[in-house]
Protein backbone atom coordinates (compact mmCIF):
# COMPACT_ATOMS: atom_id res chain seq x y z
CA UNK A 1 0.00 0.00 0.00
CA UNK A 2 1.33 3.46 -0.96
CA UNK A 3 1.65 6.10 1.71
CA UNK A 4 -0.29 8.86 -0.07
CA UNK A 5 0.50 11.56 2.49
CA UNK A 6 4.26 10.90 2.08
CA UNK A 7 4.00 11.14 -1.71
CA UNK A 8 2.01 14.35 -1.38
CA UNK A 9 4.63 15.91 0.90
CA UNK A 10 7.44 14.81 -1.44
CA UNK A 11 5.76 16.36 -4.50
CA UNK A 12 5.00 19.57 -2.60
CA UNK A 13 8.61 19.89 -1.52
CA UNK A 14 9.89 19.30 -5.08
CA UNK A 15 7.43 21.82 -6.55
CA UNK A 16 8.43 24.47 -3.99
CA UNK A 17 12.13 23.93 -4.78
CA UNK A 18 11.41 24.18 -8.51
CA UNK A 19 9.47 27.42 -8.18
CA UNK A 20 12.09 28.94 -5.88
CA UNK A 21 15.07 27.83 -8.00
CA UNK A 22 13.48 29.18 -11.14
CA UNK A 23 12.65 32.44 -9.43
CA UNK A 24 8.98 31.98 -10.31
CA UNK A 25 7.68 32.64 -6.85
CA UNK A 26 10.75 34.38 -5.64
CA UNK A 27 8.63 37.44 -4.93
CA UNK A 28 7.50 35.73 -1.78
CA UNK A 29 11.02 36.12 -0.53
CA UNK A 30 12.51 38.95 -2.61
CA UNK A 31 10.49 42.14 -2.93
CA UNK A 32 12.78 43.54 -5.68
CA UNK A 33 12.27 40.46 -7.82
CA UNK A 34 8.49 40.79 -8.08
CA UNK A 35 8.35 42.12 -11.65
CA UNK A 36 10.99 39.73 -12.88
CA UNK A 37 9.13 36.86 -11.35
CA UNK A 38 5.82 37.87 -12.89
CA UNK A 39 7.57 37.87 -16.26
CA UNK A 40 8.30 34.23 -15.64
CA UNK A 41 4.55 33.60 -15.58
CA UNK A 42 3.95 35.40 -18.85
CA UNK A 43 3.86 32.12 -20.77
CA UNK A 44 0.44 31.57 -19.24
CA UNK A 45 -1.00 34.63 -20.94
CA UNK A 46 0.92 34.56 -24.22
CA UNK A 47 -2.05 32.90 -25.89
CA UNK A 48 -4.60 35.30 -24.40
CA UNK A 49 -2.69 38.40 -25.50
CA UNK A 50 -2.30 37.03 -29.03
CA UNK A 51 -6.07 36.79 -29.60
CA UNK A 52 -7.29 39.01 -32.44
CA UNK A 53 -10.85 40.08 -33.29
CA UNK A 54 -10.62 38.00 -36.45
CA UNK A 55 -9.97 34.91 -34.34
CA UNK A 56 -12.94 35.71 -32.11
CA UNK A 57 -15.09 36.09 -35.22
CA UNK A 58 -13.93 32.67 -36.40
CA UNK A 59 -14.85 31.16 -33.01
CA UNK A 60 -18.38 32.48 -33.55
CA UNK A 61 -18.43 31.11 -37.09
CA UNK A 62 -17.21 27.74 -35.80
CA UNK A 63 -19.91 27.85 -33.12
CA UNK A 64 -22.52 28.76 -35.73
CA UNK A 65 -21.53 25.79 -37.91
CA UNK A 66 -21.75 23.46 -34.92
CA UNK A 67 -25.13 24.93 -33.98
CA UNK A 68 -26.41 24.43 -37.53
CA UNK A 69 -25.13 20.84 -37.44
CA UNK A 70 -26.53 19.91 -34.04
CA UNK A 71 -29.70 21.98 -33.73
CA UNK A 72 -30.75 22.35 -37.35
CA UNK A 73 -29.40 19.02 -38.63
CA UNK A 74 -27.63 20.73 -41.55
CA UNK A 75 -25.09 18.22 -42.93
CA UNK A 76 -23.93 17.46 -39.36
CA UNK A 77 -21.28 14.98 -40.48
CA UNK A 78 -19.36 17.74 -42.24
CA UNK A 79 -20.38 20.99 -40.56
CA UNK A 80 -19.68 19.75 -37.03
CA UNK A 81 -16.03 18.77 -37.71
CA UNK A 82 -15.57 21.94 -39.75
CA UNK A 83 -17.04 24.09 -36.96
CA UNK A 84 -14.86 22.50 -34.31
CA UNK A 85 -11.86 22.67 -36.63
CA UNK A 86 -12.50 26.38 -37.21
CA UNK A 87 -12.09 26.94 -33.46
CA UNK A 88 -9.09 24.61 -33.28
CA UNK A 89 -7.08 26.45 -35.92
CA UNK A 90 -8.01 29.89 -34.64
CA UNK A 91 -6.65 29.56 -31.15
CA UNK A 92 -3.46 31.63 -30.87
CA UNK A 93 -0.17 29.75 -31.24
CA UNK A 94 -2.26 26.72 -32.15
CA UNK A 95 -0.36 23.47 -31.79
CA UNK A 96 -2.32 21.93 -34.65
CA UNK A 97 -0.66 24.26 -37.15
CA UNK A 98 2.91 24.71 -38.32
CA UNK A 99 5.51 22.02 -38.79
CA UNK A 100 4.29 18.93 -37.04
CA UNK A 101 0.81 20.37 -36.46
CA UNK A 102 -1.71 17.62 -37.09
CA UNK A 103 -4.33 19.66 -38.97
CA UNK A 104 -1.71 21.19 -41.24
CA UNK A 105 -0.18 17.75 -41.81
CA UNK A 106 -3.59 16.26 -42.66
CA UNK A 107 -4.23 19.10 -45.08
CA UNK A 108 -0.87 18.82 -46.79
CA UNK A 109 -0.94 15.05 -47.07
CA UNK A 110 -4.66 14.41 -47.49
CA UNK A 111 -5.65 17.31 -49.70
CA UNK A 112 -2.66 19.12 -51.23
CA UNK A 113 -0.43 16.16 -52.03
CA UNK A 114 -2.97 13.97 -53.81
CA UNK A 115 -6.52 15.14 -53.06
CA UNK A 116 -6.77 11.76 -51.32
CA UNK A 117 -9.59 12.59 -48.88
CA UNK A 118 -12.22 13.83 -51.39
CA UNK A 119 -11.30 11.03 -53.79
CA UNK A 120 -11.50 8.30 -51.18
CA UNK A 121 -14.85 9.69 -50.10
CA UNK A 122 -15.99 9.23 -53.70
CA UNK A 123 -15.45 5.47 -53.40
CA UNK A 124 -17.92 5.46 -50.53
CA UNK A 125 -20.39 7.68 -52.41
CA UNK A 126 -20.13 5.44 -55.48
CA UNK A 127 -20.88 2.41 -53.34
CA UNK A 128 -23.97 4.15 -51.96
CA UNK A 129 -25.49 5.04 -55.36
CA UNK A 130 -27.92 2.79 -57.17
CA UNK A 131 -27.82 3.81 -60.83
CA UNK A 132 -30.82 1.54 -61.52
CA UNK A 133 -33.42 4.34 -61.94
CA UNK A 134 -31.09 6.10 -64.38
CA UNK A 135 -30.26 2.94 -66.34
CA UNK A 136 -33.94 2.16 -66.78
CA UNK A 137 -34.71 5.73 -67.88
CA UNK A 138 -31.47 7.07 -69.43
CA UNK A 139 -32.97 10.26 -70.89
CA UNK A 140 -32.73 11.67 -67.36
CA UNK A 141 -29.00 12.00 -68.05
CA UNK A 142 -29.72 15.14 -70.03
CA UNK A 143 -31.04 16.85 -66.90
CA UNK A 144 -27.89 15.90 -65.04
CA UNK A 145 -26.05 17.86 -67.74
CA UNK A 146 -28.41 20.83 -67.99
CA UNK A 147 -28.46 21.38 -64.25
CA UNK A 148 -24.75 22.23 -64.30
CA UNK A 149 -25.52 25.51 -66.07
CA UNK A 150 -25.32 27.51 -62.84
CA UNK A 151 -21.64 26.56 -62.46
CA UNK A 152 -20.61 28.22 -65.71
CA UNK A 153 -23.00 31.15 -65.34
CA UNK A 154 -21.53 31.87 -61.92
CA UNK A 155 -17.98 31.73 -63.28
CA UNK A 156 -18.87 34.60 -65.63
CA UNK A 157 -20.53 36.56 -62.84
CA UNK A 158 -17.53 36.04 -60.54
CA UNK A 159 -15.21 37.31 -63.26
CA UNK A 160 -17.41 40.37 -63.71
CA UNK A 161 -17.12 40.98 -59.98
CA UNK A 162 -13.35 41.08 -60.35
CA UNK A 163 -12.25 37.59 -59.32
CA UNK A 164 -9.41 36.13 -61.41
CA UNK A 165 -10.67 33.40 -63.75
CA UNK A 166 -9.01 30.65 -61.71
CA UNK A 167 -10.82 31.74 -58.55
CA UNK A 168 -14.06 32.18 -60.48
CA UNK A 169 -13.85 28.59 -61.74
CA UNK A 170 -13.40 27.29 -58.21
CA UNK A 171 -16.31 29.38 -56.94
CA UNK A 172 -18.63 28.25 -59.75
CA UNK A 173 -18.23 24.60 -58.80
CA UNK A 174 -20.11 25.29 -55.54
CA UNK A 175 -23.20 25.10 -57.77
CA UNK A 176 -22.49 21.43 -58.42
CA UNK A 177 -23.82 20.81 -54.90
CA UNK A 178 -20.99 18.34 -54.59
CA UNK A 179 -18.67 18.95 -51.64
CA UNK A 180 -15.77 16.65 -52.60
CA UNK A 181 -15.71 17.98 -56.19
CA UNK A 182 -15.75 21.58 -54.96
CA UNK A 183 -12.87 20.87 -52.60
CA UNK A 184 -10.88 19.03 -55.23
CA UNK A 185 -11.30 21.65 -57.97
CA UNK A 186 -10.48 24.53 -55.62
CA UNK A 187 -7.42 22.68 -54.38
CA UNK A 188 -6.12 21.81 -57.85
CA UNK A 189 -6.66 25.40 -58.97
CA UNK A 190 -4.95 26.62 -55.75
CA UNK A 191 -7.88 28.82 -54.76
CA UNK A 192 -7.43 31.24 -51.86
CA UNK A 193 -11.08 30.70 -50.94
CA UNK A 194 -11.04 26.95 -50.45
CA UNK A 195 -12.40 27.19 -46.88
CA UNK A 196 -15.27 29.44 -47.91
CA UNK A 197 -16.01 27.25 -50.93
CA UNK A 198 -16.20 24.11 -48.77
CA UNK A 199 -18.40 25.80 -46.18
CA UNK A 200 -20.68 27.19 -48.92
CA UNK A 201 -20.90 23.85 -50.76
CA UNK A 202 -21.88 21.89 -47.68
CA UNK A 203 -24.12 24.57 -46.20
CA UNK A 204 -26.13 24.98 -49.38
CA UNK A 205 -26.38 21.22 -49.82
CA UNK A 206 -28.07 21.18 -46.45
CA UNK A 207 -30.31 24.04 -47.53
CA UNK A 208 -31.66 22.22 -50.60
CA UNK A 209 -35.16 21.94 -49.04
CA UNK A 210 -35.28 25.72 -48.73
CA UNK A 211 -33.39 26.88 -51.83
CA UNK A 212 -34.80 24.54 -54.47
CA UNK A 213 -38.56 25.05 -53.89
CA UNK A 214 -38.08 28.82 -54.02
CA UNK A 215 -35.99 28.64 -57.22
CA UNK A 216 -38.38 26.18 -58.91
CA UNK A 217 -41.48 28.20 -58.06
CA UNK A 218 -39.80 31.22 -59.59
CA UNK A 219 -39.74 29.64 -63.06
CA UNK A 220 -42.70 27.24 -63.13
CA UNK A 221 -46.46 27.57 -63.05
CA UNK A 222 -48.74 25.50 -60.83
CA UNK A 223 -50.01 23.73 -63.93
CA UNK A 224 -46.45 22.70 -64.88
CA UNK A 225 -45.74 21.45 -61.39
CA UNK A 226 -48.84 19.26 -61.61
CA UNK A 227 -47.73 17.40 -64.75
CA UNK A 228 -47.92 13.68 -64.09
CA UNK A 229 -45.30 11.28 -65.37
CA UNK A 230 -46.17 7.60 -65.48
CA UNK A 231 -43.32 5.39 -64.34
CA UNK A 232 -42.80 2.19 -66.30
CA UNK A 233 -39.33 1.03 -65.36
CA UNK A 234 -37.55 -1.29 -67.76
CA UNK A 235 -35.66 -4.15 -66.23
CA UNK A 236 -31.92 -3.59 -66.05
CA UNK A 237 -29.64 -6.58 -66.32
CA UNK A 238 -26.79 -7.23 -63.93
CA UNK A 239 -24.35 -7.10 -66.85
CA UNK A 240 -25.48 -3.54 -67.63
CA UNK A 241 -25.05 -2.54 -64.00
CA UNK A 242 -21.52 -3.98 -63.96
CA UNK A 243 -20.43 -2.63 -67.34
CA UNK A 244 -21.90 0.83 -66.75
CA UNK A 245 -19.27 2.09 -64.24
CA UNK A 246 -16.42 0.67 -66.34
CA UNK A 247 -17.61 2.26 -69.59
CA UNK A 248 -18.45 5.61 -68.00
CA UNK A 249 -14.94 5.72 -66.54
CA UNK A 250 -13.46 5.04 -69.96
CA UNK A 251 -15.62 7.68 -71.69
CA UNK A 252 -14.82 10.30 -69.05
CA UNK A 253 -11.14 9.40 -69.15
CA UNK A 254 -10.93 9.68 -72.92
CA UNK A 255 -12.92 12.90 -73.26
CA UNK A 256 -12.07 14.79 -70.07
CA UNK A 257 -8.91 13.18 -68.61
CA UNK A 258 -8.84 15.62 -65.71
CA UNK A 259 -12.15 14.19 -64.51
CA UNK A 260 -10.74 10.67 -64.40
CA UNK A 261 -9.79 10.71 -60.73
CA UNK A 262 -13.25 11.90 -59.73
CA UNK A 263 -15.27 9.74 -62.09
CA UNK A 264 -12.95 6.75 -61.71
CA UNK A 265 -13.17 6.61 -57.92
CA UNK A 266 -16.94 7.20 -57.97
CA UNK A 267 -17.41 4.40 -60.49
CA UNK A 268 -14.94 2.11 -58.70
CA UNK A 269 -17.12 2.37 -55.59
CA UNK A 270 -20.18 1.60 -57.69
CA UNK A 271 -18.49 -1.39 -59.32
CA UNK A 272 -17.72 -2.83 -55.88
CA UNK A 273 -21.41 -2.45 -55.08
CA UNK A 274 -22.78 -3.92 -58.29
CA UNK A 275 -20.38 -6.80 -58.94
CA UNK A 276 -22.19 -8.90 -56.36
CA UNK A 277 -19.02 -10.57 -55.11
CA UNK A 278 -17.70 -7.94 -52.72
CA UNK A 279 -20.58 -7.30 -50.37
CA UNK A 280 -18.24 -6.82 -47.40
CA UNK A 281 -16.11 -4.29 -49.27
CA UNK A 282 -19.22 -2.52 -50.48
CA UNK A 283 -20.54 -2.23 -46.94
CA UNK A 284 -17.13 -1.06 -45.72
CA UNK A 285 -16.94 1.60 -48.44
CA UNK A 286 -20.46 2.84 -47.70
CA UNK A 287 -20.00 2.83 -43.94
CA UNK A 288 -16.62 2.82 -42.18
CA UNK A 289 -14.56 4.24 -45.08
CA UNK A 290 -16.99 7.06 -45.85
CA UNK A 291 -17.40 7.82 -42.14
CA UNK A 292 -13.67 7.87 -41.42
CA UNK A 293 -12.92 10.14 -44.35
CA UNK A 294 -15.84 12.40 -43.46
CA UNK A 295 -14.54 12.85 -39.91
CA UNK A 296 -11.09 13.77 -41.17
CA UNK A 297 -12.22 15.79 -44.19
CA UNK A 298 -14.21 18.28 -42.14
CA UNK A 299 -11.48 18.98 -39.63
CA UNK A 300 -8.84 19.04 -42.38
CA UNK A 301 -10.70 21.61 -44.46
CA UNK A 302 -10.82 23.78 -41.35
CA UNK A 303 -7.13 24.47 -42.04
CA UNK A 304 -8.39 26.89 -44.69
CA UNK A 305 -10.61 28.58 -42.12
CA UNK A 306 -7.73 30.32 -40.38
CA UNK A 307 -8.71 33.92 -39.62
CA UNK A 308 -5.99 35.39 -41.82
CA UNK A 309 -7.30 33.42 -44.81
CA UNK A 310 -11.03 33.36 -44.10
CA UNK A 311 -11.90 36.79 -42.72
CA UNK A 312 -12.00 38.93 -45.83
CA UNK A 313 -14.63 40.58 -47.99
CA UNK A 314 -14.09 37.97 -50.68
CA UNK A 315 -15.42 35.23 -48.38
CA UNK A 316 -18.83 36.88 -48.13
CA UNK A 317 -18.95 37.37 -51.89
CA UNK A 318 -17.94 33.74 -52.44
CA UNK A 319 -20.80 32.62 -50.17
CA UNK A 320 -23.25 34.81 -52.11
CA UNK A 321 -21.95 33.54 -55.46
CA UNK A 322 -22.28 29.96 -54.23
CA UNK A 323 -25.96 30.56 -53.48
CA UNK A 324 -26.36 32.12 -56.92
CA UNK A 325 -24.71 29.09 -58.55
CA UNK A 326 -26.98 26.74 -56.65
CA UNK A 327 -30.12 28.62 -57.65
CA UNK A 328 -29.11 28.81 -61.31
CA UNK A 329 -28.20 25.14 -61.44
CA UNK A 330 -31.76 24.36 -60.38
CA UNK A 331 -33.21 26.92 -62.78
CA UNK A 332 -31.01 25.58 -65.61
CA UNK A 333 -32.40 22.07 -65.14
CA UNK A 334 -36.00 23.28 -64.92
CA UNK A 335 -35.75 25.50 -68.02
CA UNK A 336 -34.12 22.67 -69.97
CA UNK A 337 -37.06 20.41 -69.10
CA UNK A 338 -39.44 23.14 -70.28
CA UNK A 339 -37.48 23.38 -73.52
CA UNK A 340 -37.66 19.63 -74.06
CA UNK A 341 -41.42 19.76 -73.41
CA UNK A 342 -41.84 22.00 -76.47
CA UNK A 343 -40.92 19.01 -78.64
CA UNK A 344 -42.83 16.31 -76.75
CA UNK A 345 -46.43 15.18 -77.35
CA UNK A 346 -48.99 16.25 -74.76
CA UNK A 347 -49.15 12.90 -72.99
CA UNK A 348 -45.36 12.57 -72.77
CA UNK A 349 -44.58 15.91 -71.15
CA UNK A 350 -41.96 16.05 -68.42
CA UNK A 351 -42.68 17.69 -65.09
CA UNK A 352 -40.09 20.52 -65.22
CA UNK A 353 -39.35 20.09 -61.53
CA UNK A 354 -37.60 16.83 -62.43
CA UNK A 355 -35.04 18.90 -64.33
CA UNK A 356 -34.26 20.75 -61.11
CA UNK A 357 -33.30 17.44 -59.48
CA UNK A 358 -30.34 17.15 -61.84
CA UNK A 359 -27.97 18.46 -59.18
CA UNK A 360 -25.64 16.37 -57.12
CA UNK A 361 -27.32 16.66 -53.71
CA UNK A 362 -28.49 13.06 -53.58
CA UNK A 363 -31.09 11.95 -52.56
CA UNK A 364 -32.25 15.15 -50.90
CA UNK A 365 -33.05 16.94 -54.13
CA UNK A 366 -35.22 14.07 -55.45
CA UNK A 367 -37.12 13.98 -52.18
CA UNK A 368 -37.72 17.74 -52.27
CA UNK A 369 -39.10 17.48 -55.82
CA UNK A 370 -41.42 14.64 -54.85
CA UNK A 371 -42.64 16.61 -51.86
CA UNK A 372 -43.36 19.62 -54.06
CA UNK A 373 -45.22 17.46 -56.58
CA UNK A 374 -47.38 15.96 -53.84
CA UNK A 375 -48.10 19.41 -52.48
CA UNK A 376 -49.58 20.46 -55.82
CA UNK A 377 -51.34 17.15 -56.50
CA UNK A 378 -51.47 14.47 -53.83
CA UNK A 379 -51.55 11.71 -56.45
CA UNK A 380 -48.53 12.89 -58.42
CA UNK A 381 -45.64 10.48 -57.88
CA UNK A 382 -42.52 11.55 -59.74
CA UNK A 383 -39.97 10.36 -57.20
CA UNK A 384 -38.29 7.74 -59.39
CA UNK A 385 -37.93 10.16 -62.29
CA UNK A 386 -36.43 12.69 -59.91
CA UNK A 387 -34.09 10.03 -58.50
CA UNK A 388 -32.92 9.25 -62.04
CA UNK A 389 -32.18 12.92 -62.70
CA UNK A 390 -30.56 13.26 -59.29
CA UNK A 391 -28.23 10.32 -59.92
CA UNK A 392 -27.43 11.81 -63.34
CA UNK A 393 -26.55 15.00 -61.47
CA UNK A 394 -23.91 13.06 -59.54
CA UNK A 395 -22.27 12.13 -62.82
CA UNK A 396 -22.84 15.58 -64.31
CA UNK A 397 -21.20 17.39 -61.42
CA UNK A 398 -17.99 15.34 -61.55
CA UNK A 399 -17.88 15.67 -65.34
CA UNK A 400 -18.34 19.45 -64.96
CA UNK A 401 -15.51 19.57 -62.42
CA UNK A 402 -13.33 17.51 -64.74
CA UNK A 403 -14.08 19.69 -67.75
CA UNK A 404 -13.22 22.82 -65.79
CA UNK A 405 -9.90 21.26 -64.78
CA UNK A 406 -9.24 20.10 -68.36
CA UNK A 407 -9.83 23.60 -69.72
CA UNK A 408 -7.74 25.15 -66.94
CA UNK A 409 -4.90 22.84 -67.94
CA UNK A 410 -5.43 23.59 -71.63
CA UNK A 411 -5.27 27.32 -70.93
CA UNK A 412 -2.07 26.93 -68.92
CA UNK A 413 -3.63 27.81 -65.58
CA UNK A 414 -2.22 24.81 -63.70
Amino acid sequence: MWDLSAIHLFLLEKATCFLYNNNICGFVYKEEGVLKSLNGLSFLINGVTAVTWQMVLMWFIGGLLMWLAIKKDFEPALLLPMGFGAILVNLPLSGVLGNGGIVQWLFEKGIVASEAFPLLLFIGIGAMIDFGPLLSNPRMLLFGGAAQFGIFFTVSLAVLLGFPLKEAMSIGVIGAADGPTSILVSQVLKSDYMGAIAVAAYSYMALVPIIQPAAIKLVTTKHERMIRMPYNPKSVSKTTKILFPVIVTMIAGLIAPASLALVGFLMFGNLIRECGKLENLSQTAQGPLANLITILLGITIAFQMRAEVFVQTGTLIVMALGLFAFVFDTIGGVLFAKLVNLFLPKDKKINPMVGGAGISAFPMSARVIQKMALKEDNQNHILMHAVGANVAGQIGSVIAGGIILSLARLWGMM
Partner: protein
Amino acid sequence: MLNWNLLTAFTSVMGNVQNADISKSFELMGLGMLGIFIVMLLIFLVIVVLNKTTKNKKENR
Protein backbone atom coordinates in the same frame (compact mmCIF):
# COMPACT_ATOMS: atom_id res chain seq x y z
CA MET B 1 -19.75 42.13 -81.83
CA LEU B 2 -19.47 43.48 -78.32
CA ASN B 3 -16.29 45.39 -77.74
CA TRP B 4 -14.84 43.92 -74.56
CA ASN B 5 -12.23 46.69 -74.46
CA LEU B 6 -14.96 48.95 -73.13
CA LEU B 7 -14.76 46.98 -69.93
CA THR B 8 -11.04 47.50 -69.43
CA ALA B 9 -11.56 50.39 -67.10
CA PHE B 10 -14.23 48.62 -65.09
CA THR B 11 -13.24 48.01 -61.52
CA SER B 12 -15.44 45.76 -59.46
CA VAL B 13 -15.69 44.91 -55.78
CA MET B 14 -12.88 42.39 -56.00
CA GLY B 15 -10.57 44.41 -58.24
CA ASN B 16 -9.97 45.11 -61.91
CA VAL B 17 -12.01 43.10 -64.34
CA GLN B 18 -9.80 41.53 -66.97
CA ASN B 19 -10.94 41.55 -70.59
CA ALA B 20 -9.36 38.23 -71.29
CA ASP B 21 -11.04 36.65 -68.28
CA ILE B 22 -14.48 37.76 -69.40
CA SER B 23 -14.16 36.29 -72.85
CA LYS B 24 -12.57 33.13 -71.42
CA SER B 25 -15.45 32.74 -68.95
CA PHE B 26 -17.96 32.83 -71.80
CA GLU B 27 -15.80 30.41 -73.73
CA LEU B 28 -15.77 28.18 -70.66
CA MET B 29 -19.56 28.35 -70.46
CA GLY B 30 -19.96 27.31 -74.10
CA LEU B 31 -17.30 24.61 -74.12
CA GLY B 32 -18.25 23.36 -70.65
CA MET B 33 -21.96 22.89 -71.36
CA LEU B 34 -21.21 21.43 -74.78
CA GLY B 35 -18.65 19.06 -73.25
CA ILE B 36 -21.08 17.89 -70.56
CA PHE B 37 -23.84 17.26 -73.08
CA ILE B 38 -21.47 15.33 -75.36
CA VAL B 39 -20.36 13.12 -72.46
CA MET B 40 -23.96 12.66 -71.31
CA LEU B 41 -25.11 11.78 -74.82
CA LEU B 42 -22.32 9.21 -75.14
CA ILE B 43 -23.28 7.68 -71.79
CA PHE B 44 -26.93 7.71 -72.91
CA LEU B 45 -26.01 5.80 -76.06
CA VAL B 46 -23.94 3.33 -74.06
CA ILE B 47 -26.88 2.67 -71.72
CA VAL B 48 -29.27 2.19 -74.65
CA VAL B 49 -26.85 -0.22 -76.32
CA LEU B 50 -26.19 -2.09 -73.07
CA ASN B 51 -29.89 -2.36 -72.29
CA LYS B 52 -30.62 -3.69 -75.77
CA THR B 53 -27.75 -6.16 -75.97
CA THR B 54 -28.13 -7.63 -72.50
CA LYS B 55 -31.92 -7.79 -72.94
CA ASN B 56 -31.49 -9.71 -76.20
CA LYS B 57 -29.22 -12.18 -74.49
CA LYS B 58 -31.85 -12.80 -71.83
CA GLU B 59 -34.59 -13.24 -74.40
CA ASN B 60 -32.44 -15.62 -76.46
CA ARG B 61 -31.88 -17.77 -73.43
